[in-house]
C-alpha cells in the first residue's frame, strides 16, 4: 500500500512526459505537461497523509493534533493556480506559433525561420 501510493505519482509523471515526447500537436503537448504537473500535487499530498486523521480545518471540531499535514496542502494549493496560468501562457504562445507558421505540428516546426 505504501509502495503503491508513492509509485502512482511516478507513473503519472512518466505518462505525461511520454505524451509530450510522442505528441504531434502542440496543444496536446501542453495538456500532457499539465498532467505531468499534477503528478507532483499527488505526491505531495500522499506524503502528508496521516491515517485516521481529518482535514486541518477546525471550524467545526475542537483543535486536536490528529490532522493530516497542512504544510504540503498549502504548497499544493497555490501551485495548482499558478500552474494553470503558466498553461495559459504556453497556449498563448501556441496560438502565436499557429498564426506565424500555419501549423502546430512539432515535427514541421524544426527550424526557427519559416
Amino acid at each position, binding site marked *: 500500500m505504501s509502495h503503491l501510493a508513492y509509485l502512482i505519482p511516478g507513473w503519472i509523471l512518466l505518462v505525461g512526459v511520454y*505524451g509530450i515526447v510522442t505528441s504531434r*500537436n502542440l496543444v496536446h503537448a501542453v495538456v500532457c505537461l499539465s498532467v505531468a504537473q499534477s503528478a507532483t500535487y499527488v505526491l505531495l499530498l500522499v506524503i502528508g497523509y496521516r491515517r485516521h486523521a481529518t*482535514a486541518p480545518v477546525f471550524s467545526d471540531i475542537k483543535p486536536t493534533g490528529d490532522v493530516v499535514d497542512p504544510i504540503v496542502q498549502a504548497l499544493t494549493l497555490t501551485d*495548482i493556480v499558478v500552474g494553470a496560468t503558466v498553461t495559459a501562457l504556453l497556449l*498563448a504562445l501556441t496560438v502565436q506559433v*499557429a498564426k506565424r507558421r500555419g501549423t*502546430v*505540428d512539432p515535427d514541421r516546426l524544426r527550424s526557427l525561420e519559416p
Partner: protein
Amino acid sequence: MADAVIVAALLLTAFMATAVVFTRDPACQAIVLSAYGLVLGILFVVLQAPDVAMSQVAVGTVVVPLIVILAIHAIRRHHTHSPGDES
C-alpha cells in the same frame, strides 16, 4: 475501508491520466482533461484536503479546458497547412 477507498482513488487517477495522454485529438482531450480534474478533486477529498480539492476542481475542470478549447478554435482559424488527422 478507508484504505480501500484511497487505493481505488489512486488507481482511478492513474487510469485517467493515461486516458488524457492517449486522447490525441485536442478537442476531445479538453473534455477528458476536465474529467481528470474532477477525479483529482475526488482523490484530494479522500486524502483529507478540502482546500486543495476546491482549488483543483475550480481550476482543472473549468478554467484550463476552457482555455484549451478557445486556443484550439483560435488555431483552426489560422491553420493554412493541411492538418494531419490529429489536428
